[in-house]
């Protein structure tokens, strides 16, 4: 168990906290970025805010929202003869229906962790007798890098490199969330680095169609407090979209990266783990690149089963906090994750666990023995 070992809030942040207090306003705000989740927990921000202000974490971690069936497919592909499956490290421990990539690897599947999809391409070039499949997981920050690697594979004439594309798009997920009947959030704290790519204009529909206040912000404590202050003020003045992180985010994003992404991928419906299928929220490989699409392989998949007791889905919608889940900190820890929110260091549960936001062991969940 870990506790914050120092007071991490600088003077500028305390001034912002005083300004927020002075507004005497209330609100529940959702951040949808794993790095914001970490930054808020790291600063121990929640208890410092006025009692009527609540911060909740939405589906901001692409590892956490990768569907069980997609993990199952990646595992099945990794078990095919001659295949080397390459993946970002966060995906190794994510539980599928029966297995994880880590356990498949322990049983002989060739799974390699890479930092960049370009490393996968290098492996393919070095091992022409193997079929290298890159597990493509990530939001709009990551998808252009995977698309760029596929263009590079084509340029170099490397034909033993393929991709499983489970990428997800943030704006369609936000549209789906705000459309839920019981979605009870007063504003979004929007991600910095996803927005570097897609631009702040991608969120314009939220205040216009849903009267939802939005602030795109950075990762400093002061950035997040500025966002909260602006969202509270919008509660009185009316919803709009503001960019607190203008030093890095342009309205149009990065047109070059968007062009590379759309050259290779097209939007498709996608299943979000713990949530549901969201229209237009995934990225499928275009027909022109079908030869690089490992998603079309015939593989045997296990029968899907519903996990019993894991409440990640409710956490991702902001309905409950991690410590409301009976597994949190007991049966489900970063070493032995039951649900996806505990797997990645940016998952909501892992972030709460890492920075010990519950008051003590009694609130850590009792580790009830409910079978998965």
């Amino acid at each position, binding site marked *: 168990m*870990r506790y914050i070992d120092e007071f991490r809030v600088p003077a500028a942040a305390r001034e912002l906290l005083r300004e927020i207090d002075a507004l005497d306003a209330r609100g529940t705000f959702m951040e949808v*970025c*794993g*790095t914001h989740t*970490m*930054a808020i927990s*790291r600063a121990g921000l929640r208890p410092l805010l006025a009692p009527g202000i609540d911060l909740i974490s939405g589906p*901001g*971690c*692409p*590892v956490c929202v990768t569907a069980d069936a997609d993990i199952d497919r990646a595992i099945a592909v990794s078990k095919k003869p001659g295949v080397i499956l390459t993946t*970002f*490290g*966060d995906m*190794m421990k994510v539980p599928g229906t029966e297995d994880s990539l880590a356990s498949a690897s322990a049983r002989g599947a060739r799974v390699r*962790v890479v*930092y*960049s*999809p*370009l*490393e996968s391409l290098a492996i393919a070039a070095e091992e022409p007798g193997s079929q290298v499949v890159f597990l493509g*997981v*990530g*939001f709009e*920050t*990551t998808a*252009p*890098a*995977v698309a*760029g690697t596929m*263009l*590079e594979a084509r340029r170099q004439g490397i034909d033993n490199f393929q991709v499983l594309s489970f990428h997800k798009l943030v704006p369609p997920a936000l549209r789906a969330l705000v459309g839920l009947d019981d979605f009870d959030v007063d504003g979004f704290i929007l*991600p910095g*680095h*996803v927005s*570097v*790519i897609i631009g702040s204009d991608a969120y314009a529909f939220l205040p216009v169609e849903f009267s939802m206040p939005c602030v795109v912000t*950075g*990762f*400093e404590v002061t950035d997040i407090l500025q966002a909260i202050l602006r969202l509270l003020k919008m509660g009185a003045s009316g919803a709009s979209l503001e960019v607190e992180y203008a*030093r*890095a985010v342009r309205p149009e994003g*990065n047109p*070059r*990266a968007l062009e*590379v992404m759309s050259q290779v991928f097209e939007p498709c419906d996608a299943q979000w783990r713990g949530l549901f299928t969201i229209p237009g929220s995934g990225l499928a490989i275009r027909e022109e690149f079908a030869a690089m699409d490992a998603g079309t392989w015939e593989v045997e998949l296990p029968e899907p089963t519903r996990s019993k007791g894991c409440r990640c889905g409710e956490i991702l919608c902001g309905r409950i906090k991690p410590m409301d889940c009976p597994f949190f900190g007991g049966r489900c820890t*970063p*070493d032995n994750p039951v649900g996806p929110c505990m797997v*990645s*260091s*940016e998952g909501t549960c*892992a972030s709460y*666990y*890492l*920075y010990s936001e519950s008051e003590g062991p009694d609130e850590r969940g009792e580790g009830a023995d409910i079978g998965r």
Partner: protein
Amino acid sequence: MCLAIPAIVIELDEPNLAVIEIGGVRKQVSLMLVDDVAVGDYVLVHAGFAIDKVDEGEAQKTMDLLQELARLEQEAGFNEIH
């Protein structure tokens, strides 16, 4: 996972590559997703690609934050690359 790490561009290589430095470590990254990068510029690096240019002050603040997150994650047993 969507975090991009700021780094300084040390040299430009063909075709469309750059050597960047992060925390004393040099790596090669692709410049396919950005325009007009010069030696001495700061770029945001994600998954082996520069995804945008960034000013030096912003780069420094993010680097400080990352160093602390890395330390805390290591203490807590997270050892993934991302």
